């Protein structure tokens, strides 16, 4: 005996027309296999629907809070490691590139040192000239205030930079969190 389309009708939760339902009933009367399938399916589905939801052990939300704090701390540690590793990797790549350039050109280490010394001397010279220019052109009481302001601004910038590095390294980029 063929079980189609009756088996499909039983298994697909289709809305059957009255004619189809009559046809299915007639088939179920004649086919013990399909009848048994229908009965078992209904009983199993009934069992699923009748089984209540299971709750977690009491204190789930408290455990979530603890777990959240641990996960966040773990995430920050991972960000810190990533930051330092990427910094080291970047430095290694730069130095390797520099070394490769030196190897390929006829530019020796000594030449490089001389070049760096010239650049450093040039920078120092520039600052000396700038200092002389400012001292000559500004009156002495104003220059003291000016230098204090410049120094303070510079110190603030350096402190801001250090704070930013510390924040990125140790606290990570805050996501979905209120500022702490």
């Amino acid at each position, binding site marked *: 005996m063929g079980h189609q389309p009756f088996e499909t009708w039983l298994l697909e939760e289709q809305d059957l027309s009255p004619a189809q339902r009559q046809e299915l009933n007639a088939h179920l009367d004649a086919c013990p296999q399909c009848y048994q399938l229908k*009965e078992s399916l209904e009983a199993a589905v009934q*069992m699923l629907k009748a089984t209540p939801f*299971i709750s977690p052990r009491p204190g789930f939300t408290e455990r979530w809070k603890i777990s959240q704090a641990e996960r966040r701390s773990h995430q920050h540690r991972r960000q810190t490691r990533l930051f330092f590793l990427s910094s080291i990797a970047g430095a290694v790549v730069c130095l390797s590139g520099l070394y490769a350039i030196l190897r390929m050109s006829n530019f020796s280490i000594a030449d490089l040192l001389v070049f760096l010394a010239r650049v450093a001397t040039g920078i120092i010279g520039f600052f000396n000239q700038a200092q002389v220019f400012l001292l000559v052109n500004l009156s002495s009481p104003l220059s003291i205030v000016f230098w204090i302001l410049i120094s303070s601004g510079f110190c603030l910038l350096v402190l801001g930079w250090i704070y930013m590095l510390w924040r990125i390294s140790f606290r990570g980029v805050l996501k979905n969190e209120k500022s702490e």
Partner: protein
Amino acid sequence: MRQIEQQVLQRALAGDEEAYALVVEVYQTPVYNLCYRMLGESGEAEDAAQETFWRAYQALNRYDRQRPFGTWLLSIAAHFCIDQQRKRRLHTFELDEVAEETLPDPTPNPEKVIGQLEQERALHHLLAGLNSQDRAVLVLRYWYEFSEEEISQSLSLTVSAVKSRLHRARLLLAQRYQAAQPQTVVGRNHYGSPAF
């Protein structure tokens, strides 16, 4: 499934941790139940539920507000549990692990407890033969009363794939039920069915 107040949800989405703790409080049971039905072990279900809430917390800025929040959470839980099962390649439950503490109503009534334990064991046996995605489809359909469209959205499947998985899962479910109770089902007079 309980719905959370929109105001609390808005606060949680804006980054309020206390509001998110309320979200956890409200949705802990549906999420845990899904994880338990998928993984079949209370310890793993607890870990999976915690992981679900963490993943949801991390992805709050990607939550589509047009979608019900509970459905979105369950979708995360279902995906996580399916991945876990694929990693473990474990398709069977340990029937002995159905512990009394997992029962929904752990009252001191021994008959009731035994009855619930039996029901849980029978249920575990029924679900044990299904693969992870078929099991997820079945759990969402019958415990959470999701429509086929909602299941397809939650599990990132097409509606026809959901239908096909439901078909296969229902057939297997009936076969396993039949196999577990040969005397009671085979011996019945099928002409007396009230449904037809």
